[in-house]
C-alpha cells in the first residue's frame, strides 16, 4: 500500500477537532470506547424522540 500523504483539506479540519476528547478516549479500553459511542447514539435517539413528541404536542 502507498504511504499516507498530507492533504491540505484534511489539515484544515484538524483545527476544529477537540484533542482533549481524543486523549480522553485513548484512556479507555477499546470495549469502553464502543460503549461510549453507543451511549452517545442512545442519547441522540432519546433527544430525537423527545423532539418528535414535543412537535406532536404543539400541533
Amino acid at each position, binding site marked *: *500500500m*502507498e504511504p*499516507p*500523504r498530507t*492533504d491540505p*483539506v*484534511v*489539515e*484544515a*479540519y*484538524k483545527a*476544529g*477537532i*477537540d*484533542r482533549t*476528547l*481524543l*486523549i*480522553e*478516549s*485513548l484512556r479507555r*479500553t*477499546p*470495549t469502553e*470506547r*464502543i460503549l461510549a*459511542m*453507543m451511549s*452517545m*447514539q*442512545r442519547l*441522540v*435517539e432519546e433527544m430525537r424522540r423527545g423532539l418528535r413528541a414535543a412537535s406532536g404536542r404543539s400541533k
Partner: protein
Amino acid sequence: MTDFPGLLGRLCESQVEFIVIGGVAAAVHGAARTTLDLDVVYRRAALNLRALVGALAPLSPYPRGAPPGLPFVWDERTLGNGLNFTLTTTLGDIDLLGEITAGGRYEDLSDHAAEVELFGHRCRILDLEDLIRVKRAVGRPKDFEALAELDLLLEIKKRGP
C-alpha cells in the same frame, strides 16, 4: 441503534474470518465520532461464507434501503454471487465487504490488522495507518473530518498527548 457487541459476538462465535474497518475501527483506535453501522471485510473462502451465513441468518438480514418483499435469500449462493452487501439486521446495520478501494480483499488486509479484545472476543481491526490510507483513497468529502481526527490520533500515538 446498532447492537455492536451483539453483531461482533455473532460473527466471532460463528468463527467468521473478518476484519473490522470504518467507523467502529476508528472508534476502537480512539476516534470520538459515532457511526451507525458495522463495516467488515470478510474472507471469501467457501467455509467462511458458510460461517457468515450461519452467523447472520437468525438476525433476518435484508438489503438496507430496499423495498420490502424482494426475493432476497440469505445463503451461501447469494453471498458467493455478490461481493459487497449493505444489510439491515435485527441487531442493526452491517456492511459486509468482499473487497474495498485501496485495501483489496481480506487476504490483502490481513497483515494490516491487529487482534483487539472487544466484548470478550478477539476481533481483528484494521490498523490505524491503513484505516487512514483506505479512507483517504475513497476520498469522500464526508470523510474529511473523520480523516483529520484519525490523523490526529496517529500523531498523538506517535508523539504522545
